[in-house]
């Protein structure tokens, strides 16, 4: 085995090395040069993405490390997307962290370890690797939620996240152990080969536990309890982080575990997911209506969107998975922008997380308001914005598999959902500013990034072809 054969794993290897270097730099120079670590981190992400494009590209499925690790085009694309999303998230966050005096190197290191967890998860081909990725990502994120150590609510939500997350990890491990016990292998490909219908009750039990864990990670009802509290309690920059890149990882988790490893049990899990999706759509959309906190509202909107992603899996066809992938990428792009708006609208001592704070935003900052409007219409699924195509793809996949009732419920719920997105726009555009609020202050570069973010939502909406093709090609 030559070193060169490890090339597909270059993102992970580079990132692990980068984390060590940045940690050392932070220890020796972090106190004196505050801006060093953030800059180094962004640099590392850019170089990492460059190396991935140069060396990490694989045209066909390659298995490395004795079957623990798989490199394929899907993984390649998802990793590049994760590089991009994490970089943008960190870019948006910097001023926010500075204002709250929590701009510390550890934050960036934690973000990078979370990213490493995402990569591991995306490329996992073995139950152990899956678990490794899940925990690496989750532990980094727990620490990030508690990062503002003086904030009681952040500590509370970190605790909640940790305890509930541990339960979910337990469920995942238990399900994995049952599957391992019944098939005698941890390798996802082998599991798929050895699981044959009819299934023993043990397999179904193990599957159930795994579905529960996946639902928890995605935030599907009734395993969504942690999500609104964590989104609201965490510092907004962390909410932005956990609301974006990890979703890609959890999409990959669902895809690798359910549609590859446990492919044989598709009839069983697709029923479970269908029930989860319906509950998720209804609870997410209806509960979002009564929220007064924008972060919490977006948390419920996340839950509602997860319902759509799960519907893509329910379809149970490659087309459905491609639809779910497309939906995930689009959702992450939009979430990145909407939490970015909250970050940019905040100021020292002002979180800008109440809906009231957005009254008359148009007058205070037209660009932010315009970007937010585009993002909200996109999540509501109105053309010409990209969110429309995401919903269309899901509907299409469901029709192809004759899920009439799911289409009807999803369509009705997207109308309910439109209401609270419109409410945000109404506050920004139709209402007068409530009180004297601090002006929005953000560096030109960050504003430009947000503008590009919103422009991408529009552009991908007008010309959706390429991304749709890409998603279909990645899932074959």
């Amino acid at each position, binding site marked *: 085995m030559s070193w060169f054969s490890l090339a597909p794993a270059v993102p992970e290897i580079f990132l692990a090395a980068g984390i060590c270097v940045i940690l050392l730099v932070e220890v020796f120079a972090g106190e004196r040069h505050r801006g060093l670590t953030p800059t180094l981190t962004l640099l590392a992400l850019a170089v990492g993405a460059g190396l991935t494009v140069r060396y990490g590209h694989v045209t066909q499925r390659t298995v490395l490390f004795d079957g623990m690790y798989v490199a394929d085009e899907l993984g390649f694309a998802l990793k590049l997307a994760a590089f991009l999303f994490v970089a943008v998230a960190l870019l948006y966050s910097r001023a926010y962290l500075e204002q709250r005096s929590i701009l510390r190197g550890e934050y960036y290191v934690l973000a990078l370890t979370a990213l490493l967890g995402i990569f591991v998860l995306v490329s996992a081909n073995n139950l152990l690797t899956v678990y490794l990725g899940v925990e690496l990502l989750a532990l980094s994120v727990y620490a990030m939620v508690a990062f503002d150590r003086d904030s009681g609510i952040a500590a509370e939500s970190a605790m909640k996240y940790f305890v509930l997350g541990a339960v979910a990890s337990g469920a995942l491990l238990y399900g994995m152990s049952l599957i391992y016990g019944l098939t005698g292998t941890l390798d996802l490909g082998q599991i798929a080969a050895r699981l044959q219908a009819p299934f023993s009750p043990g397999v179904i039990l193990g599957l159930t536990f795994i579905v529960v864990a996946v639902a928890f990670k995605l935030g599907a009802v009734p395993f969504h309890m942690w999500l609104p509290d964590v989104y609201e309690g965490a510092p907004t920059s962390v909410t932005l982080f956990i609301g974006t890149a990890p979703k890609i990882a959890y999409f990959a988790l669902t895809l690798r575990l359910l549609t590859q490893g446990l492919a044989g049990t598709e009839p069983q899990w697709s029923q479970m997911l269908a029930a989860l999706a319906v509950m998720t759509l209804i609870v997410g959309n209806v509960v979002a209506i009564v929220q007064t906190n924008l972060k919490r509202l977006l948390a419920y909107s996340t839950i509602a969107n997860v319902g759509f992603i799960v519907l893509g899996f329910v379809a149970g066809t490659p087309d459905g998975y491609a639809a779910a992938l497309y939906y995930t990428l689009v959702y992450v792009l939009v979430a990145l922008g909407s939490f970015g708006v909250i970050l940019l609208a905040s100021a020292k001592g002002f979180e800008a997380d109440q809906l009231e704070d957005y009254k008359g935003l148009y007058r205070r900052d037209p660009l932010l308001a315009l970007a937010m409007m585009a993002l909200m219409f996109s999540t509501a699924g109105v053309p010409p914005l990209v969110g429309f195509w995401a919903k269309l793809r899901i*509907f299409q996949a469901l029709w192809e598999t004759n899920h009439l009732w799911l289409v009807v419920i999803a369509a009705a719920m997207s109308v309910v959902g439109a209401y609270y997105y419109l409410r945000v726009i109404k506050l920004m555009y139709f209402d007068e500013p409530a009180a004297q609020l601090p002006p929005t202050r953000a560096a030109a570069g960050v504003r430009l990034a947000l503008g590009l973010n919103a422009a991408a939502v529009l552009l991908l909406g007008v010309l959706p072809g390429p991304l749709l093709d890409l998603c279909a090609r990645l899932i074959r």
Partner: protein
Amino acid sequence: MLIWLPIGAGLAVLLLGDRNIVAGRWLALAASVATLALSVPLWSSFDTATAALQFPEKLPWIPRFDAWYALGVDGISLPLIVLTAFMTVPVVIAGWRVIETRPAQYYAAFLIMEGLMIGVFSATDALLFYFFWEAMLIPMFLIIGIWGGPRRVYATIKFFLYTFLGSVFMLAALIYMYVKGGSYAIASLQALPLTLIEQRWIFLALLLAFAVKVPMFPVHTWLPDAHVEAPTGGSVILAAIMLKMGGYGFLRFSLPVTPDASRELDLLVIALSLIAVIYIGFVALVQQDMKKLIAYSSIAHMGFVTLGAFVIYEIVRNTGSLQGAGMGLDGAMVQMVSHGLISGALFLCVGVLYDRVHSRQIADYGGVVNTMPVFAAFMVLFALANTGLPGTSGFVGEFLVIIASFRASFWYSALAAVTLVLGAAYTLWLVKRVIFGPVTSPRVAALEDLNGREYIVLTALALAVLMVGVWPAPLLKVMQPTIQHLVSQAIATKL
């Protein structure tokens, strides 16, 4: 070209911003006039001998879905495109001095909307049609919400959610047909064989979308709110163009795509139309608010459109006369064009009064003729047109529909003709209370007559109303082949 010119100009006005609003205004006017000018050759070089789509444009859009950026014009879309281009000009002029807050965005919203509406009427790909159809909600939502009256937020959210609810089910139906037939081209949807059960569901999904837009009883309740709260320009576009999209949808999708279900459920639509014509007519009679009255009268008049479109099945069933069926559709189309002109003009008239007095209550007026004689003449003309006076465009459409429905059944035409009485009652009573009588209010006494801008706008509209009324032949001729083709599609069976 007609689509992107206004949209591009709209973006340019937006970029010019409120500070350069003088330039922005002129640019908006130039763009809307240019669009109108460009639509004239469309009309003059239109080949009136064929039902095929003309001036086609076709570019690949989303190859994966076999969705094309495909445009084309036929006899039922052409009049509506020209109407759109024609009505946007007065709207731009009407907002000239009146809109003081964020004028750049106001013009931008209207121009972008004009482009999108033309897109709706010229799309020959169902996905593209839906794309324009839905995208248009965004500018309209903002127009009502930002420049509207006191209850604008309620009205605009109601408007948005109602239309959105209708359209998502249309989308679901379109996707279903795509999954079945593998193409979004409208022509292939029309050719797609469907069982009766499928047709019924698709018909109902489409009905929901178009009925909300038209709007038909009982999903009309968003319209009075939206009209009352919208600024004048918004009301004009809403009444003149957006309602027509619903009628256009019936002709373009419901009749040819689901002919058997349409035949089976035609009585449902006819009944709803007649309820709209009569019940809403009575409702209009008791309104205190001028805009609300005209809004209800719009619903009643649009009832004629849906009646004309669906009565064809009864005509064919009872007499077998295809020519009679064509007359029903002719009437529906003429009624759409004419209602677009008349209701737009009436809303402009109300806007003229509102700009001066800042009230829409009928009770606040009276004796306007004494202070604004020229305006009064226009208003009376449009009001008479609204009642269907011979010589005006209102007469042609209603007359054709009533004659056609007479062939179907005496009772349809009798009930439909009631509207002539009711329409005359509420419109003339409105005129009597607003225009004539003694001057009671000091605010009316201080009124000044039309300025040049308003004069030009109302003259142009009056000429159009009279022209369609006196000599509708060119309009009918343009529509003729397409209507014939449509009748054959609508009565053919897909089973």
